């Protein structure tokens, strides 16, 4: 049997919050032997795995730890205890356009962002036309992106991210942007990815989107894993929980 592409083994993530922000507060606390920081548990003993080619939805109320899971998968955070194993190239769509520089042109930003997502110069050159086509940005490609509208900005970011040919695509609530036309295009692209065997991690508050798109879903609440299973059953459970609050 093939090894799962993403594996969480008893993952716990704690953040330390500094409770004394200024020196005036910090110094006495240090001498009085008070704790200088408190810790906050964002994820508690979570285990699950994702098979290659699976489309996993993550649902749960705000602050339940969904974004932390995504950050652990993307590799920008390490777990406090437990183990996260990722066997593949990740393309994060968490808040698009993180690497954009407002003063640079669209063209320059495509190269910059491509490199951040792990493409070589050569690969970006090959894909350049496709990226600009997808974002419908030919007119503005040599303008600094500070003059872009927020929709154009998002289109550019999405166009770069989906052309990376990821093995794992992380999608976090981003399909709320852009006009309906572009949203449809994005869904079509993601549908293509799904067909071609890309593993997709999809976070959304819209149960309809999750239900139409994911085979498997995990439900997270109060920082622990409540349920994992087929999308329909898990969504049903989530809805019941919401109703009985």
């Amino acid at each position: 049997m093939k090894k799962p592409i993403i594996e969480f083994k008893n993952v716990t993530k704690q953040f330390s919050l500094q409770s004394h922000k200024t020196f005036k507060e910090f110094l006495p606390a240090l001498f009085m032997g008070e704790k200088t920081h408190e810790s906050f548990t964002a994820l508690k003993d979570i285990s699950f795995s994702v098979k290659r080619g699976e489309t996993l939805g993550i649902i749960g109320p705000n602050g339940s730890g969904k974004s932390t899971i995504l950050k652990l998968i993307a590799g920008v955070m390490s777990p406090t205890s437990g183990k996260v194993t990722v066997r593949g190239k990740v393309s994060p769509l968490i808040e698009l356009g993180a690497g954009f520089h407002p003063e640079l042109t669209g063209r320059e930003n495509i190269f910059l962002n491509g490199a951040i997502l792990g493409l070589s110069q050569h690969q970006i050159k090959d894909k350049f036309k496709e990226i600009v086509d997808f974002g419908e940005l030919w007119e503005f490609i040599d303008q600094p992106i500070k003059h872009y509208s927020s929709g154009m900005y998002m289109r550019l970011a999405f166009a770069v991210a989906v052309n990376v040919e990821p093995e794992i695509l992380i999608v976090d609530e981003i399909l709320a942007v852009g006009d309906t036309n572009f949203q449809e295009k994005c869904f079509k692209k993601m549908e293509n990815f799904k067909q071609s065997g890309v593993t997709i991690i999809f976070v959304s508050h819209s149960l309809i989107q999750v239900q139409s798109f994911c085979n498997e879903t995990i439900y997270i609440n109060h920082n622990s894993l409540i349920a994992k299973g087929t999308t329909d059953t898990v969504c049903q459970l989530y809805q019941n929980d919401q109703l009985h609050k």
Partner: protein
Amino acid sequence: MYQHYSQNRDNSQYFDKYKSFLFFHFILYTSKYHIFKYQLFSLSHPQPLTHFLLLCYTLFMSSVLKEITSIFHYRELLMQMVSREVKARYKQSILGYFWVILNPLAQMLVMSFAFSIILRIPTNSSSNIPYSVFLFVALLPWTLFSNSLSSACNSLVGSSSLITKVYFPRTILVISTIIAKIIDFLFSISILIIYMVAYHIPITINILWVIPIFFIQQIFTFGLSLFFAASNLLYRDIQYLLGLILTLWLYLTPVIYPADIVPDRYRIFFQLNPMAVIINAYRQTVLGGGSPNYSSIFIALMVSILTLYLGLLYFKSREKVFADNI
């Protein structure tokens, strides 16, 4: 197989394995006071000190080499980041990249007015080098050092949106700002060359010493930058502290005055300050046409390597929590 988290741990494991070993030798040496009796390098009959040095060497090389390979793997990103720094800097300014030359030139002109006409600081007595050139040879590398440090210090904080979203070796952020400053430096050297030609300063083969000296300076700068960048992420006080340190450091380094007017009893501090040694060495080789003081340069090299090693160790130990603390 692609595992993000294994990278950082290896060094510490390696270190743990040898920690007791290191401690044992430390006790051994301090109790006997016999360090100098041991032959340093006899590999056929390895002495404890040889073991110790070899161990330090392996520890250093293992961590540095690992970092170099991971940076090499992301070299395209590094290039893009450097070009981002360079391209975006003077956008929407009329003079554009000319600022890179204008800035040190103006500084040099005003400072040489203040220190040669008003204060009359002597240059090297043997040769009659005009103060402006004397100052400029030292001021340019100093500006590089100080600019590199202050921009590297803010490099991680400034890229917080990247750090919380995408994985890549974080050292790239620090290195790219330093490389961008080196490019600035290379541009500003052109004025120095013009000055040197205009004042008929003889150029000898010894000027090639500049290359290794420059390398030592960069090792030192990089080591310190790693330390400041990582700690600034935790406490923003560090960037203000750094501003203060750099101002004071300028006066404790023979930039505006020659090294030989430093009283003898303070010399030792100047020997231990790599920047003092480096700046002095630039002067000796570029203007004096001589070779630098080998033992000083060696000490500076050792201090720089140690700084790089400790800086990298600290940076790596903090790297895992960068995204949590930003």
